[in-house]
């Protein structure tokens, strides 16, 4: 079976019942795809299939035949969102970060805070908190920060 992975054509001839996350991490060595809950609850494994965010931990690899798959590695390493997540302290332990960023990419222009929250409702963060994450996304979209988005406290 053939699919496109981060812009390049790939062949996969393993068991189509394998989870997409296992193929991405262990065969394609794309370890930016994180496994959190393994039940589609936390969003850490989020990748894009044909531009739509999905949980790769509950997708059979056979279902990406002919599809376009993008992981965090496909962003190239210095995507503005990656910089903003760092600068706004939107990442702490980092496990949720790749999934948060992938889930954010589909947002349209000028999103409201509510729209950002809806886009990220399927992504859980257990340490840095959501305020810094929302702030990073708002800045990426050039939107003003509402007071309710909170502010960063950086401890040197």
């Amino acid at each position, binding site marked *: 079976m053939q699919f496109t992975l981060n812009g390049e054509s790939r062949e996969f001839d393993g*068991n*189509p*019942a*394998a*989870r997409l996350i*296992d193929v991405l991490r*262990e065969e394609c060595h794309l370890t930016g795809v994180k*496994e959190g809950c*393994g*039940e*589609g*609850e936390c*969003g850490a494994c*989020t990748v894009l299939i044909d531009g*739509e*965010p*999905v*949980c790769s*931990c*509950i*997708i*059979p690899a*056979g*279902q990406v*035949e002919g599809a376009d798959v993008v992981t965090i590695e496909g962003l190239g390493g210095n995507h503005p969102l990656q910089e903003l997540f760092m600068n706004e302290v939107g990442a702490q332990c980092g496990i949720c970060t790749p999934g948060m960023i992938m*889930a954010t990419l*589909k947002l349209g222009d000028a999103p409201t805070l509510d729209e950002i929250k*809806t*886009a*990220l*409702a*399927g*992504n*859980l963060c257990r340490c840095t908190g959501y305020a810094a994450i929302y702030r990073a996304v708002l800045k990426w979209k050039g939107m003003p920060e509402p007071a309710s988005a909170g502010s960063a406290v950086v401890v040197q």
Partner: protein
Amino acid sequence: MRLAISGLDMRRATSVEDALAILRNEKRMPVAGATDVYIALNFGTLVPKQFLDIWALDELRTISKRGDTLVIGALTSYTALIQSHLVAEHVPMLAEASRLVGGVQIQNRGTLGGNIANGSPAADGVPVLAAVDATIVLRSFERERRVPVNEFYTGYRKTVMQADELIVAIEIGTVEGKQWFRKVGTRAAQAISKVVMAAVRAPSPRIAFGSVAATVVRVPETEKILGAGGSIGDAADVLSRELKPIDDVRSTADYRLRVSVNLLRRFWSDTE
């Protein structure tokens, strides 16, 4: 943790006809968006090991009108339901329910047919279908048949579906009256319902509950008293006798009953 895949066998169907031909000869569990099947597989609670991947059957992704009937293809995702003008016009509470399923990632993959076939009493889409008396279209290689959703479930995760059948579509006739939907869970997204209620305010009100019994249920006694012009107070008393929720890991029977009665009252006052 990496899923052990030895022993798992998944075939990919290329068309509905192909899928039905395979199901005629082989016992395979159909897999659409996998958002329920693969969770059970990851947990080690899924018994079947032979699967039929039907994700590629785009012919089951259409939403159309046939006369006054809305026909929703079984592989329609929650995202497609949320975005559909026909759904918004005809049965807006189905779009509302779809918005409350999981998060965006699950909405992109989960399908209405899968929600029905999975048979969970906590399914968010099914109470809507029950309240509007939807019909489920089942097809096997030899025949097609239509089953009212309110006759589809025979017990906890048990349905009238045969092993060689696929859900191909859901049909919804004209819905007269105000539609009302409410899901109560631990949080707005990514939470399995404690109680879910869908209802239509018409001369004969139609009211369905999820998560309060072994299957999604209609409450005919409660509907009858409201339809006969009884007071909401009397209807609430009837409902609290008619529903028999259980205690489980998500909630208690007492809580569920109380919330259900509150939802009934809220439905009645919201749709006046």
